[in-house]
């Protein structure tokens, strides 16, 4: 029996490795794609392209504008005409326009109040609101400078004033480094995608070519055929994940590995086993590759995007949250972040592991049962 298994596994492996474009895209998926996801996320939200429409053109307005600094703002243009304001926002060349009124200098030098207007492009709600908040903070700090000047204090007359000393602490992801987060998440997504697609596609291909029959008349039992389809994918995904740790995650993003990698890779193997079982179930239902692909997307996309990694669960409706409990990816993300970023051990994460294992066993038994049933029908 063992010899038979080894033979089958070797056959599956050879089939994958001999497909040159497939090998290239797999390597790309676990290295360059993960790198670009991490990089892409790192550039998020900051350096908002800012256009300034300065009607005052005095030293005061120049001083104010000089506070619009990276990493929050990047001044891309000084506008001369009112019509430009709409053009820059319409074209999306600027994410916001700061309008400084003509009386800015007079008000700042006098005792009144100057009103600055900020127009933001609401097409992206998050940067639109956050930029207004940042400018409000800048103008409040600038106001304090103006107040001190009005009160006749120079920089060397040290006077204390009421200040709120804000001690900001970000919990759970201290430096808000979204590149770790995004890169690790992308690795988990790749594991999901590759293990599902590869197995399903391999089995569908055998169905399309009619070579399933060849397997069926061979002395191999259905369990063996199954395991032979699953094992190569598991090994391949483990090897590729290892590569992405060695070549991308650690060197490029300084991913801190706080927990045990042995634990991580063992559970990854378990997870890939669950996903490949799901792939086999799909392959058994679908008649051809095109059908199989669409069914997989129907499962994959919601799974990846509603895993709770992109958006907080409170944003999801309760029934959607209920469905997400059925997704193995959800447990896997919890587990991986726990092991790698928080250094948790197997005991703390036992429920995630149980969740993955339970879903894996259910999917495996289901597809095995379905496969044996369809055998009886065809023979």
């Amino acid at each position, binding site marked *: 029996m063992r010899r038979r298994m080894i033979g089958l596994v070797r056959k599956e492996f050879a089939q994958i490795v001999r497909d040159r474009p497939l090998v290239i895209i797999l390597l790309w998926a676990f290295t360059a794609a993960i790198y670009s996801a991490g990089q892409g996320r790192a550039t998020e939200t900051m350096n908002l392209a800012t256009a300034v429409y300065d009607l005052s053109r005095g030293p005061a307005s120049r001083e104010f504008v000089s506070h619009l600094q990276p990493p929050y703002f990047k001044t891309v243009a000084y506008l001369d005409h009112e019509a430009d304001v709409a053009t820059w926002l319409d074209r999306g060349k600027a994410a916001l326009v700061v309008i400084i009124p003509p009386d800015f200098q007079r008000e700042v030098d006098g005792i009144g*109040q100057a009103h600055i207007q*900020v127009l933001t*492009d609401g097409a992206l709600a*998050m940067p639109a609101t956050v930029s207004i908040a940042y400018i409000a903070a800048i103008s409040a700090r600038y106001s304090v400078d103006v107040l001190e000047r009005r009160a006749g204090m120079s920089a060397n007359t040290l006077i204390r*004033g009421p200040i709120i*000393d804000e*001690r900001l602490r970000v919990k759970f992801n201290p430096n808000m480094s979204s590149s770790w987060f995004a890169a690790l998440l992308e690795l988990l997504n790749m594991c999901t995608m590759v293990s599902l697609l590869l197995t399903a596609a391999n089995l569908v291909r055998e169905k399309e*070519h009619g070579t399933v029959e060849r397997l069926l008349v061979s002395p191999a039992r259905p369990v063996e055929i199954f395991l032979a389809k699953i094992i190569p994918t598991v090994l391949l995904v483990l090897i590729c994940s290892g590569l992405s740790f060695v070549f991308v995650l650690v060197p490029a993003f300084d991913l801190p590995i706080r927990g045990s990698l042995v634990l991580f890779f063992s559970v990854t193997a378990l997870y890939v086993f669950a996903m490949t079982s799901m792939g086999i179930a799909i392959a058994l239902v679908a008649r051809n590759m095109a059908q199989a692909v669409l069914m997989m997307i129907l499962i994959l996309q919601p799974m990846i995007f*509603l895993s709770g990694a992109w958006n907080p669960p409170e944003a999801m409706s309760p029934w959607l949250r209920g469905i997400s409990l059925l997704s193995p990816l959800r447990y896997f993300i919890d587990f991986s972040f726990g092991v790698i970023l928080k250094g948790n051990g197997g005991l703390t994460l036992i429920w995630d592991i149980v969740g993955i294992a339970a879903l894996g066993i259910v999917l495996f038994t289901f597809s095995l049962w379905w496969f044996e049933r369809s055998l009886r029908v065809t023979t």
Partner: protein
Amino acid sequence: MASRLAAVVRKETREVLRDPIYLVLAIVVPLVVTTLLALGFVLDVKNLPVAFYDEDRSPLSRDYMSAFTNSEYFRLVKMAGSRDEVDQLLESAAVRAAVVIPPDFSRKLGAGDAASVQVLVDGTFPSRALVASGYIGAIDAQFAATLRAAHLARQGLIRSSVVPVSVEGRVWYNPSLETKNSLVPGLMVISLMFYPALLAALVLVREKERGTVFNLYCSPVSRWEVIIGKAVPYVGLAFFVYFLLLALNLFVFQVRFVGDPFVLTAAALLYIVASVGFGLLISVFCTTQVAAMLVTFIALMTPSILFSGLMTPVSGMERSAQIISRFIPASYFITMVRGVFLKGLGFGHFAFDLVTLGTFAAVVYGIAILGFRKRAG
């Protein structure tokens, strides 16, 4: 010649129509996935759940807290009774931010000193954490400026206690700041790149795997007739799906739409032609359906999401990312989609985007036709 092209189109159309399960899936899957993602993803930047732990319990600390609760950006969930409760609220994700006001808050501020306030923000979702810390920073700075003005006025050092500079923010195009207005049309951009390309990517490799590609090799049809003929039915199918997605946007999610549907439809057609072309290009160069599938998933989808400006404005990206985004058709279509849906811009604004998309399509089909060699091996 025209009849040969028509024959290829007819054959390919029949193949699609004769697989009803496939046809139904091809139409229904984009709609279902878009609906699920739209429901799960709509995340408003307003009403961030927040908790306070007020150890000072003074009129001043109440003023300070009302600066938060009066803004529409925070929603007070609970006044915590202890420091432990604050941690527990954050850990259970009942709140995404918490502010701890020390017992000497009003005393220190009254004396013109610095009072330290502890702000705790949940960093699990970086972009949300950024919004939260941005707002809290703004509220703190403004509260301090107001106090400073009052303080100096009390000491008679300035004549009026008004804060010298005020900021009025106005949000254009999406005044109610609803995320769905940018998200749901954005999902359409991704769908119309992904599905047409994926389905078209399987077309030629399928024939290669089955061996029926030899029929094409030895038939009189020329290379361009094969590629164009195979593209037509998929463009038609995707165009049909586009109308359904548009209806989903307008009638189910009631996304703000101020522009001209005709402009959008013209842009969508060009975009679909380009994405089907990308699929065929992949199909020409891959030998198995598995590989074609993975290439579409990884090489087409991820960059379209990351660099098109779907999540973050391209204008703020780094130079290298901006250059990448220029080579992604989704960047141009997303500009047009937002321009039409939210900004109400007309054809005149999109000349450049339309020409670029057209160029993309021409190049992609060109390479696909040249790459498809009518010989074995």
